[in-house]
């Protein structure tokens, strides 16, 4: 930007018959200084409106009694936070969320990297395969959840039918860990392909001469993958890990839809809260119990948790991939 503006300045000054010369000049100067900020302003304005303002407003709601219809009540300070932190169900939802997140994310990222590596080869009809892995992502999450909930039905679900037909015991999918696996499966179904494409983009940006050099050095396919691809992919992996962390800690649709309609704990993450995630708990407190103040407090606690785990993730992935790089 600046390289094109610099010569324009003297040109305007040189013009003699310019009645508004002084004004024009200040305008130009102002233009020069301010316009870059205006160019980037839309993002910050949008962020302010849709990101920052709700965050601050939520904090305001969280320190008040707030009924969903009645609106703002008395100022209660940190009471909402202490009430939530004192509820066993909150901690259970934190545990569930992290459990589902781990069960989903680790296999998902491993699978995504290998799928990306496979797609990185010279496949025939490459675009077809690349589009193919993105297909599950196009499906509406709620539709996916409904279909998978049927597959994972306790009594008449397809998976249990198959298990029984080969002589195994049916699995009670609404149990503690089994429900986490079921929900993680839905999450993986949707996100693996998406992450694979992002990783693929990262892989394609790796200079090919590195591979050529590796080949000349006598490195095999596997060796190239672990010693060239993975280290070079480091920034992409960090990006994918962080976005998955944010997404994974906000799992809602899948958990909400799992287990069917209103009975048997469906819709609220299980009668025992076996698969109640933080967002689901947030929704339940706000919309089922009409207590938006506490709901806002949960939202803030979730925000803090995401920041914490995001930071943790960042340092771990940095460490892992940088040690890989030195090798």
């Amino acid at each position: 930007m600046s390289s094109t503006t610099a010569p324009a300045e003297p040109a305007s000054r040189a013009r003699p018959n310019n009645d508004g010369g002084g004004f024009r000049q200040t305008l130009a100067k102002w233009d020069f200084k301010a316009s870059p900020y205006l160019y980037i302003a839309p993002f910050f304005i949008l962020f302010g409106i849709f990101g920052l303002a709700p965050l601050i407003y939520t904090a305001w709601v969280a320190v008040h009694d707030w009924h969903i219809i009645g609106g703002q009540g008395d100022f209660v300070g940190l009471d909402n936070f202490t009430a939530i932190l004192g509820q066993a169900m909150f901690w259970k939802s934190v545990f569930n969320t992290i459990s589902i997140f781990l069960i989903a994310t680790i296999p998902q990222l491993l699978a995504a990297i290998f799928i990306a590596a496979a797609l990185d080869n010279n496949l025939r009809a490459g675009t077809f395969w690349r589009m193919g892995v993105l297909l599950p992502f196009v499906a509406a999450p709620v539709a996916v959840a409904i279909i998978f909930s049927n597959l994972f039905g306790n009594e008449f679900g397809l998976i249990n039918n198959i298990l029984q037909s080969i002589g195994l015991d049916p699995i009670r999918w609404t149990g503690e860990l089994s429900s986490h696996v079921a929900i993680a499966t839905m999450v993986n179904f949707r996100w693996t392909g998406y992450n694979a494409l992002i990783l693929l983009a990262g892989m394609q940006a790796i200079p090919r001469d590195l591979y050529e050099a590796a080949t000349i050095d006598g490195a095999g396919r596997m060796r190239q993958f672990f010693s060239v691809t993975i280290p070079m992919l480091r920034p992409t992996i960090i990006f994918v890990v962080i976005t998955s962390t944010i997404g994974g800690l906000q799992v809602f649709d899948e958990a909400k839809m799992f287990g069917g309609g209103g009975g048997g704990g469906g819709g609220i993450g299980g009668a025992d809260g076996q698969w109640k995630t933080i967002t689901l708990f947030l929704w339940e407190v706000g919309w089922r119990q009409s207590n938006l103040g506490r709901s806002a407090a949960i939202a803030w606690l979730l925000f803090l948790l995401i920041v914490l785990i995001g930071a943790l993730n960042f340092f771990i992935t940095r460490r892992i991939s940088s040690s890989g790089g030195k090798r």
Partner: protein
Amino acid sequence: MKSRALRRTALLAGVATTAIVLAGCAGGADAGDSTEGDGPVTITVATFNDFGYAPFIEEFMKENPDIKVVEKISGGSDESRENMLNFLGQDSGLSDIEAVEVDWLSELMQYSDRFVDLTDPELEGRWIDWKQSQATDAEGRVIGYGTDIGPQGIAYRADLVEAAGLPSEREAFAEYLGGADATWDRYFEVGAEFVANSPTGATWFDTVQGVYMAQVNQLENAYEENDGTPIDLEGSDVEEIFTTILEHGTEGGQSAGVGQWTGDWDAYYNKDDGFATIMAPGWMLNIIKDRAGADFAGWDIADVLPGGGGNWGGAFLTVPTQSKHPEEAKKLAAYLTSPEVQLQLFLNQGTLPSTVEALASEELKGATDEWFNNAPVGQILSNRADAVTVVPYKGASYKKIHDVIVNGMNRVDVEKTQGIDESWDQVLSELGSLN
């Protein structure tokens, strides 16, 4: 020069974009459906499950060409409630007519000034008293027109009952349960007999949740005193009911242990090892038919309910004050709840009318249902309506408390993760953290 002009354009464009974005945000909230000029007025009707209104809405539009009606059907009562709570608070986003279920009506009654007063001298005495009083607030404003009511009989699988060697014929079955003096003790006693003798291993009832619903609707003050203060449930009737049903249901093996409204529940209606009885308000009849399938034979309905009469469910049509066309909405709501429409709805799908005239009509009393072994459903349900003597008090916290307890039952019955005592303890602690 050129680059400067370009830049200025870009600058202007940037500012304009920002302005548009800002304007969009500010204007978005109000730019609703109020943009009809001289054309017909559009009013929306939000219901849940299926009220069967479609043909009547057609009819109404034919008679009122200046009104266009759009029906929105949500997935269920809970979903409607959440939607209602959400948008009632925001003061926008609701339909012109909103259907409200009786279990959470009282929650909204706290904010009765957010609903149009539907009082109409012409409609005086149209509904049965207790139905009308539920939707009338302390100042005498009527905020909802009653749709159906849900007095319960017992729908049962005559084929399974017969196979277990119990009297399966409609009247004999009712008599076996105690007839007019049927008690819950007797119901569970027969249940134990049924379970012990069923050759296919069928269970006695679908889920403890349904049986609990029937019993709790027979209590005058289940969860709250008449002034709305929550009752301490430790050692209460509710605890007693909770424990008894669960003991018979799980330890006694009388419950099929499937959550209501789940796929598993749906699938049990026509199985040989399915459940034999289900508490059946009028609106349940179509649900049973749908799940079991039109060709299935075996279901019947008996004119009996243990513990006296009982009412499960029933809705109201309300008009929120945020409606832009309250007059038209009121007119439509009055039409949809008129005796004629209610009677027709009963004949179509079994939802029992709440208007005096429709309830008393010969057509209703004479109605039979071929699918339910030609049962005289009209007579049975209207007998059941007469048997309702208790109108339970349901205050602002009713639904919240009820949900916690039902979850507690499902933990034991459906998910089998806890024992009865452990689950009840958790119910008490969750109730403690509700407010």
